[in-house]
């Protein structure tokens, strides 16, 4: 039951819309089948499969809105869920910022489905874990990791003729490899829509190499250093900043994009001119749905930062109407332009610096400057005369991604990285950045 095709969901949506007596009606039908396997201490710890399907109905009478859902799909149940949403709407307080549902949208299909990923079974998952576990056992190392895959569909429709249906697949693999004495630790993350892009052996080998190379880390003094930041070190920093590209907050004076005197930094050159960042649902590496689940607005390619300038802000439908501009869909992915340079090439051109392969526990310290704090983790190395010299102890940093993107010296090749605490799929390059601010040392390995 969990995965329905377009014909089935269209029938459900049409039926729901026909039952509605409200001024307007929006239907979403979602279903998913998610499997996972988790391992630690060179053995499987948990594994599971979860399935769920539901239809959600949102209706409005004037500015009063109500939502109800159900996971039964017979005609009687569908009518019942519409009546419930209508009852709730009649009782709801008026929302002065209510916006009527969108008119006809052009949802241009994106390549979010892969049949091989959809076919992943418990054996495949166990094998993905087995590669890492067996390689670590052989090398007297300890593996912990998580492989998750999912197949889902999403259908949206409204009483103004909008309809969209799309299938999605995902897989995500992370693995931490530690030495038995706990003095070395390495990590890897791989995300993909297509199973063919994932090689569990290659992934495990990356974590193993980092673990072996990170043993016997030396302590460097905290301070400002030139750093080479691998994508897993910047993804959460960029995500935290780009979540704040909101027009309303900016106009209200409570964003880092607000300026003295009440103006916004839209159009200002806030970053190095090498920085180009956009969202694009049709990007082949990180495809996402061509619509925004909440507003049903069709996603477009959106240039957020162009040649270092703040190029666009996100306008909710309410704020767009108030400001007389077009609303924008919330982006589902982040793409940053890179070059063909490998991380090794970035290292080769560095006289003195630090290679950061991952950052962790990143939190906002001051939204005024997007000052973030966090730590390096699972492989941090000192670079001298173009070569990795030795592993170093982890640092805490206090740094703003705005400053980081201003201090870029070189950019590498983009890679795919899924968001952890930020809701974006990302394709971002390694970066060489000067004067990155490390404020204290950590004993953690």
């Amino acid at each position, binding site marked *: 039951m969990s995965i329905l095709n377009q014909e089935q969901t269209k029938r459900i949506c049409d039926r729901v819309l026909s039952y509605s007596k409200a001024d307007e009606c929006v239907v979403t039908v979602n279903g998913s089948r998610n499997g996972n396997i988790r391992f630690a201490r060179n053995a499987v710890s948990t594994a599971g*499969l979860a399935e769920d399907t539901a239809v959600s109905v949102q209706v409005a009478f004037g500015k009063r809105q109500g939502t109800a859902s159900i996971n039964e799909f017979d005609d009687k149940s569908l009518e019942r869920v519409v009546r419930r949403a209508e009852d709730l709407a009649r009782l709801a307080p008026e929302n002065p910022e209510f916006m009527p549902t969108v008119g006809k949208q052009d949802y241009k299909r994106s390549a979010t489905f892969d049949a091989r990923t959809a076919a992943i079974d*418990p054996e495949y998952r166990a094998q993905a874990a087995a590669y890492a576990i067996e390689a670590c056992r052989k090398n007297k190392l300890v593996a912990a990791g998580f492989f998750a895959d999912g197949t889902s569909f999403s259908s949206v429709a409204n009483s103004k003729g909008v309809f969209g249906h799309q299938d999605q697949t995902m897989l995500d693999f992370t693995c931490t490899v530690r030495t038995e004495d706990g003095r070395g630790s390495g990590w890897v993350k791989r995300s993909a829509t297509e199973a063919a892009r994932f090689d569990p052996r290659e992934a495990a080998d990356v974590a193993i190499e980092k673990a072996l190379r990170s043993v016997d880390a030396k302590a460097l003094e905290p301070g400002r250093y030139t750093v080479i930041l691998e994508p897993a070190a910047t993804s959460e920093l960029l995500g*935290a900043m780009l979540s704040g590209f909101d027009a309303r907050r900016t106009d209200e004076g409570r964003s880092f994009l607000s300026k003295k005197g009440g103006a916004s930094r839209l159009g200002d050159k806030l970053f190095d001119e090498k920085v180009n960042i956009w969202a694009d649902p049709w990007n082949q590496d990180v495809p996402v749905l061509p619509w925004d689940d909440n507003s049903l607005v069709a996603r477009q390619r959106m240039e957020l930062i162009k040649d270092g300038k703040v190029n666009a802000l996100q306008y909710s439908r309410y704020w767009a109407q108030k400001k007389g501009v077009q609303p924008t869909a919330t982006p589902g992915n982040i793409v940053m332009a890179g070059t063909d340079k490998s991380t090794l090439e970035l290292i080769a051109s560095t006289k003195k610096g630090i290679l950061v392969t991952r950052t962790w526990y990143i939190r906002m310290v001051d939204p005024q400057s997007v000052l973030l704090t966090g730590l390096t983790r699972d492989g941090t190395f000192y670079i001298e005369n173009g070569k990795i010299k030795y592993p170093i102890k982890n640092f805490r940093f206090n740094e703003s991604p705005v400053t980081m993107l201003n201090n870029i010296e070189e950019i590498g090749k983009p890679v795919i990285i899924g968001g952890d605490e930020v809701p974006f799929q990302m394709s971002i390059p390694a970066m060489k950045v000067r004067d990155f601010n490390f404020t*204290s040392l950590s004993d*953690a390995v």
Partner: protein
Amino acid sequence: MERRHFLNISGLAVGSMLVPVFGRAIAAEELLKPMAVGAKKALADTALDAATKAGASYCDVRIGRYLTQYVVTRDLNVEDVTNTESAGIGVRVLCNGAYGFAATSDMTPDGVAGAARQAVAIAKANARLQSEPVQLAPLKGVGEVSWATPVQKDWRTVPIKDKAELLIAANKAGMDGGASFMQSMLFQVNQQKYFASTDGSYIDQDIQRLWAPLSATAVDKASGKFRSRGGLSTPVGMGYEYLDARAADKIRAAGGVATLYTRSYDIVEDARAAGRDAKRKLTAKSVTPGKYDLVLSPEHLWLTIHESVGHPTELDRVLGYEANYAGTSFATLDKWESKNFKYGSALVNIVADKTTPGSLGAVGYDDEGVKCKRWDIIKDGVLVSYQATRDQAHIIGEKESQGCSYADSWSNVQFQRMPNVSLQAGARKLTPDEMVKDVKKGIYIVGDGSFSIDQQRYNFQFGGQLFYEIKDGKIGQMLEDVAYQSNTQDFWNACTALCDERDWRMGGSFFDGKGQPPQISIVSHGSPTARFNGINVINTARKIG
């Protein structure tokens, strides 16, 4: 593909907060319809039977109905009212010494039996990679029992209109107090959890929790500066009576810099104060970095306890089961075995418990059917125990589980989660005002703010909501741009004074993340106001653009 569904709540003091939203939206009146116990038992027996027949040596079944209601307001508008329901069944089995888990929202006998067989198939696939079989601590079945959070006012019976009006009144008070923008929210949770296992337990629990966070933001458009102050309430394992704002539950912070709350909360009063404080922050003195003696209120200290004691003493972290995500722990087994690892000064006594009334962690039984209890983690400064589940108890020489198993949904497998972990009050009579009198150069911190700690829980950095200078035994002016950095063991050994039990109260987390796939838990941490000497304070002000 966007794998998680988030409610993006922007405008909280620390920036934006992403709250995971589970379940399906439903109408308000449905919140009150429970599923009959007899029907749950019949479904559970179907699953237990199917799992046993498929080869499971142990099986537990969790039938869950998770209800939430979120009311979100911004300034004078109600932005969102969401009721969600998530119902389904999760089946965990042991087969050939390995775990398998499957869950489904299909609550028919066939659906439930199918999930049980699927769980056994998964366990069999995993068993070949198992290095040692899972070893469960013995547990005697308790038969058919029930437990419910003691509440005076069930949030499900309070009209949404009343809730919306209360939040709007708070926002109005905040704006009257000096805020340019206000946001306030009400998170309400009801978990109807039915647990059954092949040990012979059938446990029916009804759990209620509530949280009313707010944030006031003041903007000075001329300078381009903005500052926020979050609310000083705590999430609770109570009913709607927490919002009764009883005068007897109000206390005065040291130096009278804020009104603080114990068993009930005056959201309108706190919102007004938050508006006033946010505006004052715009012109407060930026802190001079250096070493300070910190006087930390329970509204602040709960989060430091959570990160620097709660997480590092989770036994699964210590053993390496969380190595791939949350990390491991500096509080290794050899330190515990030595019986003399000085986690903190002799004043530091930290207790784990899942029984304190009004706390977020209070339940009758955990998600493995273990009756909840209380035990020491740090005694007179020395590490003496951890937090363990059934399959971990034998590792620390315990004959039974400490009852720390929890799953945030029927669709996720249960694993070790933190009980309430609390710092005990000092034995000597001492009030916060008396504590301040002995401090020459210090900072008084009220409320929780930014937080970050490394993956083995050594190095941390915390912010706060309100910072006041302490000079020669007196509370002085408001400070801004304050964060402190320390090392867990150094910090707890720098604890030199504790207020007494009159000042002991709880803070807590409504959205504590751990595990893969990530699961959210709820946990309270009690403490008195406490003093820590010579802690490194940094200045967090920066200029961009």
